[in-house]
């Protein structure tokens, strides 16, 4: 009897191992790592707080479609690095916030909070074009020092890479995501000043700064 139970459990174990191996063969995990360059250009005269939530920093896209193999794509660390680098170079002063809206430093004029809205990708066999493509959409929110929303805008990023010179699907997808993240950084940097609400906020700050300067000069002259 004991022998039978042992035999049955070994048999079941073997089946479980085989099924796990087969399932693992159909699932793909991608961990995107990346270092991004600092943008070249003039810094905006603002003191900005950057709040990257834990969800944002650990963002993992999981695909569980019946038509596709299983994909787990973690872009959290890469996008954390990108947003900290790009936003860190865009303004005269930046502060990384570990919590928001609590404990906001007194000198912060604007708080920027990005969120991932969507990530999509296509494989060469789906499009019949010899490239991997990735789209990422971010919801960007900006709040003033009192927590009122100043602006809300969307950043769309696109990245693609040909298959020919890459070895695996995972590597190709990682490269396409890195290109998409660079594109997100470029859009964030070049588009920030074009958001009407932010334009108004910036010009208001510049006006009050020049008024302050004028007042200081007049006091000195007296």
């Amino acid at each position, binding site marked *: 009897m004991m022998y039978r139970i042992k035999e049955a459990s070994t048999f079941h174990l073997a089946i479980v191992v085989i099924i796990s191996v087969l399932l693992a063969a159909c699932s793909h995990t991608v961990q995107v790592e990346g270092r*991004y*360059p*600092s*943008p*070249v*250009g*003039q810094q905006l005269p603002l003191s900005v707080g950057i709040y990257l939530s834990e969800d944002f920093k650990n963002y993992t896209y999981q695909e569980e479609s019946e038509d596709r193999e299983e994909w787990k794509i973690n872009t959290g660390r890469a996008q954390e690095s990108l947003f900290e680098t790009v936003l860190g170079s865009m303004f005269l002063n930046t502060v990384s916030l570990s919590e928001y809206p609590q404990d906001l430093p007194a000198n912060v004029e604007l708080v920027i909070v990005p969120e991932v809205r969507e990530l999509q990708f296509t494989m060469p066999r789906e499009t019949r*074009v*010899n*490239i991997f493509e990735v789209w990422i959409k971010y919801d960007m929110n900006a709040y003033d020092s009192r927590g009122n929303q100043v602006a809300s805008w969307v950043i769309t990023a*696109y990245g*693609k*890479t*040909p298959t*020919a*010179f890459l070895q695996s699907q995972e590597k190709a997808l990682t490269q396409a995501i890195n*290109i998409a993240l*660079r*594109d997100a*950084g*470029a*859009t964030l*940097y*070049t588009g920030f000043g074009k958001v009407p609400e932010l334009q108004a906020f910036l010009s208001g700050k510049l006006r009050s700064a020049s008024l302050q300067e004028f007042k200081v000069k007049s006091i000195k002259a007296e």
Partner: protein
Amino acid sequence: MFKPFIVLILIFLSGCTTVVIDEYRRSDGELAAGDSVVILGRRHSSDYETEPNLIACVGRELHNPEMGVNIIPEKEFVDIMYPWFEPRTAPMHVRSLDRLMENREVREKMEAYGVKYIVWIDGSTETTASAGSISCTISTGGAGCFGFGTWDKESDYEASVWDFRDRELSGKLSADAKGTSYMPAIVIPIPLIARVQNNACKGMAVQLQQFLIPAAATSS
């Protein structure tokens, strides 16, 4: 002793490629000491992408500091100038450079690197046709393949040379290369590969060298 034999076998084992280069020149190249050239790939099209290895190959072939040709690698340049030469933001016309140069930091970086020419390469290499079949079997007695496969590749590239300092198009050149690769398999598959992209790269590099340093071309 075996060296010439090996070289002959390698020549025999590679497929044939034809390369056609066309050129339109508005002005001759004039590189002074300390000047640099940047070679960049266009990546804005939705259905193809200029291969980074093609750009690296042209850069490698052209880079010759002794002759006064100093090439800044694509990745290095794009990182230094981030985000102004990304697929979304890169200038598409020479006149767009004027607007970009209104940005003082960008202008200073370009001047610090001594950029004289920006060469934009647009195009790709594609497999246009394939035929034949090869089947391989593995058994307890051994393994082997049998059959014949062939495929055609075509490269189509266009290079635009921008004079960064004079803000004008100095010229254009195109490289079209075609080649057929074969793979007969009698037990072991023997690939006879036509190096289409590599030949297009070398053809373009030679023409660009003549373009950038015409004095070297006349002396050779």
